[in-house]
């Protein structure tokens, strides 16, 4: 065991770095750990998402912070590797971060227990365990936005209300062959039972760059509507294959992961008519985005390419931080400084009817419901941008609740 010497040297060097790093930072700032995957599986979203988060925090700081308290983002790449995520989490925690966003399902899963033990807040907007909506079982985990289950029900509800009802329809769920892809399945199966439609699922192998065999099967099923459930490079392939196999774009419904980049990829005109679930409004029409444009982008304080401002994923980032900052504000107001994990948790649970000035559906987070209601809307690509075709709404939450409880129960049992 002659080998620790080298490591101790590395460790002491790293320690020196860490102290130097934290000395430079402000002592009283609130720190958010935005430790995400910029180099592996989540690259399709993390760049724009993180840019939105940082631009919003810059906006808050430019407007004077929370009563003068600044918010500082600790941004690190963990490459979707749990061991790097764990290191980044522990380091950021030592630097005093009270809120974490890993934006990676494996890393979030690996750290759920640590977060619950350490009493710091973990936000899992649009990723991670859907059953974390159960605030009693996961007191420090906040999905904040509609889980994949709620997304499936909102899409189904749109068909029920605007496309002539679900009854007797044939619906194909074409999904990536992973736990994420299969996630909506139980909810949709329950709905199929309840609303009497025929459901079949068609998995395609990860990463989904080649799906032709799957879509041949789908075509022979002759579905009325198709749900596509994938992310990244697989999504444009799904849309193309669907259109190629004679499925009208209007009949394609996507999970939240379908954005402007995918439309460009498929061909902006070709994709016109495709619908998707959205958790936040896209575009720059909302007041928050206007202020970001004015005070951050025009002042040259932006965190990245100005062309990304207002894209779907950018706005998801903005919304996630808007909720977090609102929670921090409520926490500071009622509990006082300094902000700690338990205080921030209480702040989150005080959020009620918060819609980030129209950027997202009004959400109300309670001690038992950390999903915030599970609302969203359906929007349609019109060739240039996403146009909402429904109001903010939540649907079939009773069915979703069954899944949440089942998952939470399994977690309590030790899963």
């Amino acid at each position: 065991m002659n080998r620790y010497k080298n490591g101790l040297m590395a460790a002491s060097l790293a320690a020196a770095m860490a102290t130097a790093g934290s000395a430079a930072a402000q002592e009283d700032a609130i720190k958010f750990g935005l430790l995400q995957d910029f180099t592996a599986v989540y690259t399709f979203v993390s760049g724009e998402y993180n840019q939105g988060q940082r631009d919003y925090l810059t906006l808050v700081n430019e407007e004077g912070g929370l009563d003068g308290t600044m918010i500082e983002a600790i941004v690190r790449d963990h490459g979707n590797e749990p061991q790097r995520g764990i290191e980044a989490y522990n380091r950021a925690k030592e630097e005093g971060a009270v809120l974490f966003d890993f934006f990676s399902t494996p890393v979030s899963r690996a750290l759920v227990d640590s977060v619950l033990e350490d009493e710091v807040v973990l936000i899992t907007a649009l990723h991670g365990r859907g059953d974390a909506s159960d605030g009693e079982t996961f007191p420090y985990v906040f999905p904040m936005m509609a889980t994949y289950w709620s997304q499936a029900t909102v899409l189904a509800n749109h068909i029920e209300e605007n496309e002539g009802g679900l009854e007797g329809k044939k619906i194909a769920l074409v999904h990536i062959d992973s736990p994420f892809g299969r996630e909506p399945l139980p909810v949709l199966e329950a709905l199929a039972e309840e609303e009497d439609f025929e459901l079949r699922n068609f998995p395609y192998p990860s990463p989904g760059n080649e799906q032709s065999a799957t879509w041949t099967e789908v075509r022979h099923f002759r579905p009325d509507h198709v749900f596509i459930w994938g992310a990244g490079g697989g999504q444009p392939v799904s849309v193309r294959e669907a259109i190629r196999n004679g499925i009208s774009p209007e009949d394609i419904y996507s999970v939240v992961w379908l954005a402007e980049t995918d439309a460009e990829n498929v061909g902006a005109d070709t994709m016109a008519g495709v619908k998707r679930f959205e958790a936040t409004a896209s575009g720059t029409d909302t007041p928050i985005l206007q202020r970001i444009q004015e005070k951050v982008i025009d002042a040259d304080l932006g965190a990245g390419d100005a062309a990304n401002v207002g894209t779907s994923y950018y706005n998801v980032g903005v919304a996630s931080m808007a909720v977090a900052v609102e929670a921090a504000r409520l926490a500071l107001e009622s509990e006082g400084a300094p902000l700690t994990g338990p205080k921030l948790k209480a702040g989150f649970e005080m959020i009620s009817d918060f819609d980030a000035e129209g950027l997202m559906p009004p959400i109300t987070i309670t001690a038992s419901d950390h999903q915030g209601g599970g609302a969203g809307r359906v929007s349609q690509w019109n060739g240039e941008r996403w146009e909402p075709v429904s109001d903010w709404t939540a649907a079939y939450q009773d069915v979703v609740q069954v899944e949440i409880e089942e998952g939470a129960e399994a977690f309590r049992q030790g899963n």
Partner: protein
Amino acid sequence: MFYRLAGVHHTRYQSARRLWPVPADRWQVLFLLALAVVAPFFLSNLYLGSYLLPWLIWSAAALSLTLLMGTAGQLHFGFAAVMAIGAYSSIHLVRFGVPFEIALVGAGVTAAVIGSLFGMAALRVKGLYLVMATLAMQYLVDWVIINVPAISGGAQATLRTPTVSFLLVPVDSLVSRYYLALIWVVLVTLFFLNVKRTSFGRALVAIRDKDFAAAVIGVDPFRTKLVAFFTSSFMGGVSGAILAFAYYRAVTPEQFSFNVSIQLVAMVLVGGLGSAVGGFLGAGFVLLIPIFLTNLVAWLAGAGWIAISANLIAHVPLMIYGALIIGFLLFEPLGLAKIYDNIRKYFLVWPFRHSRS
């Protein structure tokens, strides 16, 4: 007092054949072991839990693979799958009510049995074809884990490790998990260091150097290769179980994906094929360098020394890491172990120039 070979004269074979014939080396090992034992008392939770602990466990895994790749010369690009089998079987065994100590052995045996199936390919082919065959098996194991909910743990595909006790000591705190890992890595290291002095170890080396020639001198390649796969997979399986219980505390399929297999091979190669020091150094390098680079680049960027886009900042560590691997293979193909050895030899005779070891 600096000349560390002073007074070292072996007069009996027994003393010359010790693991560390030079007293200075022995003291160094003991000192480092003592340091590792008291580490929880002077290292913060960050360095203990996120650096030293994973390093120890991955070193054990890398040593298990080194036994196969370095000592026996059988290439294996699916070792993460072997560890996955160990991790999953240990958790399921513990949940079934089996005591943790026995579950660890059970995990090792399951991994070893399935791992020996990987070895079947080695009986037929070697070199590049063996790489491809083990790689394909990695994909198969991954697929089975993901697609059988009974193994992966249902919809969320996450299995949390139950709280267990090891030899009556509950493994719940970071310190106890650290000692569990330390015990295992010490065991693996002792086994690895001693295996080369047994007839089995020498048979492995004979197979590595030339299996036909080994057969001629009476080493059964069929049996030896299978036992090599069995032993190495046993150790890998237990390492996987320790990884699950002592470090991750929840297993998901991604933790044992193909990338992890590549990382393990990189550990073995960058460390230096076939040496124990290399296993430790290689594991440290592959595991900690990306973390270290990420922090370094983020710190430099935060201090305003490099003004580049956030996207590039995230990718620079990846580039440097790739370049480092290439650099090692080009300029020091014998790995970190060789560099360590050069330094050691230099200081062994310091302040004299000539080398004798």
